């Protein structure tokens, strides 16, 4: 015990160890916070995507990167009819509502998309809606009218007829400064734009909910992906997944390897021979191709991958190293003493032999963790990530599939890569310092 405490004290002398520990603590903190803030089932649900992300922009970059560059790209604005008092005109058998959904627009870039979400409760006859766009300079553009279903999404940006009439994509055509309409890069008309909803309801009491979403070009801390999902979910949830995978794989492989090496040394004879031969067979098995094979043929569940990694890691080359270390220990007098008092084989192996080499194991163990974290990311980049879990590697894979670099969505690649790098550096720095503390030959170098 004293030896360990001394080692820890010495560790404080290495700035890299302090920095590494800091990084690891930060990651652990982030992981714990994530698991508490976004429970597992909710994270899976969020990452599955779909309707719940409908009010998020597609491929929006993080807000802060734009602001740092001095840009003023728009953020998403949601204008809800609940906040606007409607103008009401009753008539026999129903009423007519005029809902002005207005918003201030002061960015110099156009929004990325405009959608209108309508929801009406069960009504005897479907209500009728007419849409009129009112620009700040008083122009009016009628977007057409339609009978609406119970729930409706009106994609104003994808109205081809409107696009032909305006000569631009609707969200550009509706919001541009008319004087610049003929230029190849029209300017935004800043000010208060309004989408006026002229609704005829054939019901005395029933209402209508409308949400006008003016999608921005930047979103949140992490931005969004091609399915409108907030990347923050994956970046945050990637942390506990990566740490758990790395830690479990590292524990699984090092501990089993050590125990098996100790068993071989203790029992000698055929046990040792079998272990040695298995190690040699394992050495020529290409790990990654086998993992890829298992991933494609069986399942890409992260737990199966973990199992295979551990199974292939048990008889790793480390056995030879531990064997060399354990061989002299076998003949040590204290082992003889243990045998004399009648300690069982298991007791000698687990309580007498294994603890002796643990200090040498610790640095290896710590430096192994990032290897496995990157292994998981590698598999995900190859498209063999866990089908449901959000991980950093899967974000990278999505980015690669959507040609993020080619399209200029650098944030999509850089943020998961940054977190991966942080994990790698944190553990590697601590591991290197530990190596020098616990391996006496290196201490003075």
């Amino acid at each position: 015990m004293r030896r360990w405490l001394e080692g820890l004290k010495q560790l404080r002398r290495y700035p890299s160890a302090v920095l590494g520990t800091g990084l690891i603590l930060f990651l652990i903190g982030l992981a714990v916070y994530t698991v508490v803030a976004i429970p597992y089932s909710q994270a899976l649900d969020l990452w599955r995507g779909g309707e719940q992300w409908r009010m998020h922009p597609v491929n929006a970059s993080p807000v802060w990167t734009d602001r740092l560059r001095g840009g003023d790209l728009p953020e998403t604005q949601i204008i809800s009819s609940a906040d606007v008092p409607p103008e009401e005109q009753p008539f026999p058998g129903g009423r007519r509502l005029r809902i002005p959904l207005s918003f201030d627009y002061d960015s110099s870039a156009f929004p990325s998309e405009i959608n209108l979400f309508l929801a009406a409760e069960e009504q005897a006859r479907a209500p009728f809606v007419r849409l009129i766009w009112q620009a700040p300079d008083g122009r009016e553009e009628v977007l057409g009218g339609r009978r609406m279903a119970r729930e409706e999404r009106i994609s104003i940006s994808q109205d081809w007829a409107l696009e032909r009439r305006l000569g631009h994509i609707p969200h550009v055509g509706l919001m541009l400064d008319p004087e610049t309409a003929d230029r190849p890069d029209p300017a935004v008309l800043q000010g208060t734009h309004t989408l006026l909803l002229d609704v005829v309801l054939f019901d005395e009491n029933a209402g209508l909910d409308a949400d006008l979403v003016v999608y921005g070009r930047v979103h949140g801390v992490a931005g969004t992906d091609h399915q409108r999902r907030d990347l923050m979910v994956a970046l945050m949830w990637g942390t506990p997944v990566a740490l758990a995978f790395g830690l479990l794989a590292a524990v699984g492989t090092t501990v089993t390897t050590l125990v098996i090496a100790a068993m071989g040394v203790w029992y000698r004879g055929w046990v040792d021979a079998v272990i040695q031969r298995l190690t040699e067979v394992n050495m020529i098995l290409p790990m990654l191709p086998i993992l890829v094979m298992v991933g494609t043929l069986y399942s890409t569940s992260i737990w199966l991958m973990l199992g295979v990694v551990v199974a292939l890691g048990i008889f790793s080359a480390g056995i030879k190293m531990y064997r060399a270390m354990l061989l002299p220990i076998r003949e040590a007098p204290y082992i003889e003493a243990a045998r004399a008092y009648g300690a069982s084989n298991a007791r000698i192996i687990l309580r007498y032999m294994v603890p002796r080499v643990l200090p040498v194991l610790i640095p290896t163990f710590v430096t192994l963790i990032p290897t496995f974290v990157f292994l998981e990311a590698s598999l995900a980049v190859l498209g063999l990530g866990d089908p449901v879990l959000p991980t950093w590697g899967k974000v990278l894979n999505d980015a690669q599939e959507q040609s993020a670099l080619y399209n200029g969505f650098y944030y999509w690649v850089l943020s998961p890569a940054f977190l991966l790098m942080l994990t790698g550096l944190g553990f590697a720095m601590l591991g290197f310092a530990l190596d020098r503390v616990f391996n006496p030959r290196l201490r003075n170098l």
Partner: protein
Amino acid sequence: MSALPGIDPTARTRGRWRDVWRMLIFSGKRLLALLLTVLAGVYLTILIANMGGQVDELRMVQIRGEISEAVRADPAFQDMSSEERNELIERQVDLEVERLNLDQPFILRSFDYLYRAMLLDLGRAEQMHSDAGSRQVFDIIVERLPATLLLFGTANLLIFLVSVWVALHLSRRYGSMLDRSVVGLAPSSAAPAWFYGMFLILIFAFVLPALPSGGMVTAPPPEDRLEYLASVVRHMALPLVAMFLSQIFISIYSWRTFFLIHSSEDYVEMARAKGLPEHLIQRRYILRPTLSPIVTSFLLMLIGLWSGAIILEQVFNWPGLGTLVFQAIGHRDTPVIIGTVVIFAYLLAATVFLLDLLYGILDPRVRIEGGR
């Protein structure tokens, strides 16, 4: 080296013959052991690749689906009654099953696979074919092998030579600014090469488009030999730099530590005390005794990099073995998958054998004790 001065020449030749004989026995034993190892490894691979026979069921469903589709779509069979058509489908399915040997039990077929795999008769691919059009798995693999060997051979050799050379220098200037910065940079090697590759692609292919982002030559390949070479070099630059970046600091660090430990040995101190020139100390007193560990670690590095190839090749779209494995898995082409893993296993085994042999030559203890 083994003979001492003052011993008569016949004893010396006899000693040499004895050495050669022991080396032969030693390498023969190792070769046999490795052959058995490869056998076990390849059989395991076959078992995993076939999911213990379950893949066959998937393939049966696939075959049946494809054949019924083909029969239904063929206008020649339009006016058949449905019974006749079903009969035809059954007959064709049987034929296909027989062609693919699916009617034998898996255990039998697995030994058949093993026997042929060991003889490097890797069979015919089910879906894929080589660029030259051959369906033989061996041809497909051999076509891809040079690309992998070119990239990984160059990178490994470069990393090895540069790191040993730099490490020797650093171990003499131990504690200098450069030395400390290399030690500080060593943890950066926690990230694999493809990770750096991604950034390199981002910077050098997209932000300042100077180099191609993937592939091995421009399409269409240039006619001129020199131009072809230049194109390959340009395409190789980024993956090479990626591997170099991810490996160089850690290997310099470990070599430097290694040399430092060995240069504090008593016999080196003794040589210093005698006043021998520094380069002589380095060559005779540091490099010679550490030669076998150096070679070992070089070959071990090779082993480690063989399997890392898949992802780097995938990221850079390099037409090598790694990309092949990935494509084969996409096609569920079992013979190709097994074939590649067999080739990987052979390459690894060859590396290990080379290691043993070099060890025997470099380390006199192996020669004298006959590999005990």
